[in-house]
């Protein structure tokens, strides 16, 4: 007989295993908390409800975009269309605002439909025609930007008052809606990852071949990941419109690299298989918080970029360090 490594079924409930902690968003949460602490010490007014509200309102579009991109990156793909879809969703909301709470829902439905449509094109081209994702989504990004320019030639338009004011406010005057949305996305992810679709997503990213031989429909899983991504990008464009109260045909451009930086900061591996949406949300929040911290500590001139770049590298090294330390303990 073979050697017996696992003699008794391990206890799976109770405390999370070291592996679970490492694979979770733990390192990036630590980084986030450290930065938040520094920030609130240097600038105590950061703890006021208004500051928190504005910080999260400002961060939410990037957080949603990063959440969406995570779905694609987890299965081993890449999606540049994020910039195009956000711009497109942003201008659509600003050109066709519908008043009232129901109007806000109608607008949301519109942008999510747009995101799904573009996502479906991406998914079809990448999963079924087997075009390299980075190139295919570059093309769809360019097309989306063109459509956005046709819809709105220059920044302008306006969004409904409900979106502009209610969606950026706080519930019961205590919890910013942006935070509620972010938490809802985390809850959604924690459920989704245990569904068959969620497992398939991670499995395809881990080992495409093995997943296929296990009976997982790889192409459909890929396709679905682009749909999820598109929907989240649409929502990101929607929240961008709510926050800025206008449309901008170039509104999505800054999101292109920042989204992937956020995902990478969260520790999700490019190439797939490891990581998660929660980590990406914190990655995005960290990037936006960094802007605040840099301002607060007075690094704000020509050399801001030096510090930003250094922090990004250090954050990734820190995550790797945590992983190395904990996995060493794990193997003993």
């Amino acid at each position, binding site marked *: 007989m073979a050697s017996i490594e696992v003699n008794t079924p391990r206890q799976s409930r109770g405390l999370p295993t070291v592996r679970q902690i490492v694979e979770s968003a733990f390192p990036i949460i630590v980084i986030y908390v450290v930065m938040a602490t520094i920030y609130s010490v240097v600038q105590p007014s950061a703890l006021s409800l208004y500051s928190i509200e504005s*910080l999260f309102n400002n961060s939410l579009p990037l957080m949603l975009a990063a959440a969406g991109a995570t779905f694609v990156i987890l299965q081993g793909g890449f999606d540049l269309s994020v910039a195009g879809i956000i711009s497109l969703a942003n201008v659509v909301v600003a050109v066709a605002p519908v008043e009232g709470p129901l109007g806000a829902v109608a607008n949301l439905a519109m942008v999510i439909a747009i995101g799904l449509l573009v996502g479906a094109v991406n998914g079809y081209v990448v999963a079924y025609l087997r075009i390299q994702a980075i190139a295919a989504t570059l093309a769809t990004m360019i097309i989306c930007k063109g459509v956005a320019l046709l819809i709105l*030639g220059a920044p302008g338009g306006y969004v409904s008052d409900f979106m502009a004011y209610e969606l950026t406010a706080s519930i019961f005057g205590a919890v910013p809606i942006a935070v509620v949305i972010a938490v809802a996305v985390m809850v959604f992810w924690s459920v989704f990852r245990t569904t068959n679709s969620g497992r398939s997503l991670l499995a395809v990213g881990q080992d495409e071949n093995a997943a296929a031989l296990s009976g997982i429909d790889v192409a459909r899983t890929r396709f679905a990941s682009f749909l999820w991504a598109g929907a989240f990008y649409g929502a990101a464009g929607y929240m961008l419109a709510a926050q800025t*109260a206008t449309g901008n045909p170039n509104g999505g451009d800054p999101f292109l690299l920042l989204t992937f930086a956020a995902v990478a900061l969260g520790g999700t591996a490019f190439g797939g298989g490891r990581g998660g949406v929660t980590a990406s949300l914190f990655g995005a929040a960290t990037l936006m918080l960094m802007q605040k911290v840099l301002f607060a500590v007075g690094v704000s001139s020509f050399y801001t970029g030096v510090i930003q770049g250094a922090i990004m590298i250090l954050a990734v090294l820190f995550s790797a360090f945590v992983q190395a330390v904990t996995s060493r303990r794990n193997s003993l």
Partner: protein
Amino acid sequence: MKLTKTAKALALAALVGAGTQLASTDVASAKTADGKWLIYLSLSYSGNSWQSEAANIVKALAATPPFKDTVELVEVISGTDPQAQISDYESMIAKGADGIVSFPISSTALNRVVQRGCKEGVLFFMYDATVTEQCAYNISYITSGFGENTAQALVNALDGKGKIFLSRGVPGNSVDDRHTNGAMHIFNQYPGIDVVAEYYSYWDDRTTQQETAKALAAHPDVDGIWAQAGEYGAIQALLQANPNRLVPVTGENSNGFRLALANPDYQAIGLDGVSAGSPPAQSGFAFKIMMEILNGTREPLPEGQRNIEYPLPWVPGDAVKLCEGDKFENGCNTFPEGKVPSSFVTEVFNPELLPELSLASALEGKPTEGAEIQPLPADAVKAAPNEPGINCRQCEAPENLYHLTKVEPTVQP
């Protein structure tokens, strides 16, 4: 700094000890603890001559007495992401800024935070680019008719007919949109004018050169180029394609362009045109108005009337005059080659509004030796017309929006 050491210690103690709500006590009230105004200079994109000159002018003024002792100026560069500038505005408001003089990245996205800042008593002075939020002051040349005036000048130079290129700015940008609309308003009146290519040059010399080269591949027989900033690149592309032929070019205020306009060799092979467009001096003007309001020597304008027009510089080829010294003196408006880079935007001075400045101010942000801040002339402030999407939101543009101010049509359609 607004927040003194004691305040910080207190804040820390409150944070650590009680860990409870610390109301934002440090809102804008008056001057900073050491008796200075806390002014932020907020840039979005930095990295071309125009932006750094505009910033340097403000820095030079802030270092000129008496501002030297009454102003604490902090420069913040946010980058091209509106979210970052929003975040930085928020931080400035939280730090208790008295005023923010800024180049806004977006005419619309910043409105909300600007509005909030106004409520906290912060003065917002936007230069060159504008915001549509009515509580902010917009000091800009945009409404002064760059597009239509240069277009008419080009039409005049072409005698009302010919193939032209439009070298535009950034797609989806409201300033580019305004300039182009003005220009097209003129071009459309002349059936003889044929816009054969239209491309975006991102207000950058090198991009203009490449894009113009591409357009020239299709239309080597072009008769004229209407350009926004980056115009010097268009001339280089023309020379590259054919060193023996130039065509009329209108553009903005780079020193290289003005030197080219005055170059007899170039004139001989067909160059003609006018240099107009965005002057970096707007930033200094904005800063001085803001300081006068803060110091109480000038009445704040009522909301809705805070759009101030900066006069459009206008230098046709025959009006180019080289400066001997480091200032615009005796009507000169261009620096000799070698003194400044060709991309240097010459409109950094204004003898009436900004007599304090010299070349060192624009290039390095240094105050001029012996200069003191002079009060603005009484008639300095000229209201700008409403332009929806530029400096107001739901408003009507005047009917004569595109009327010509600098040039008369010499040919009829």
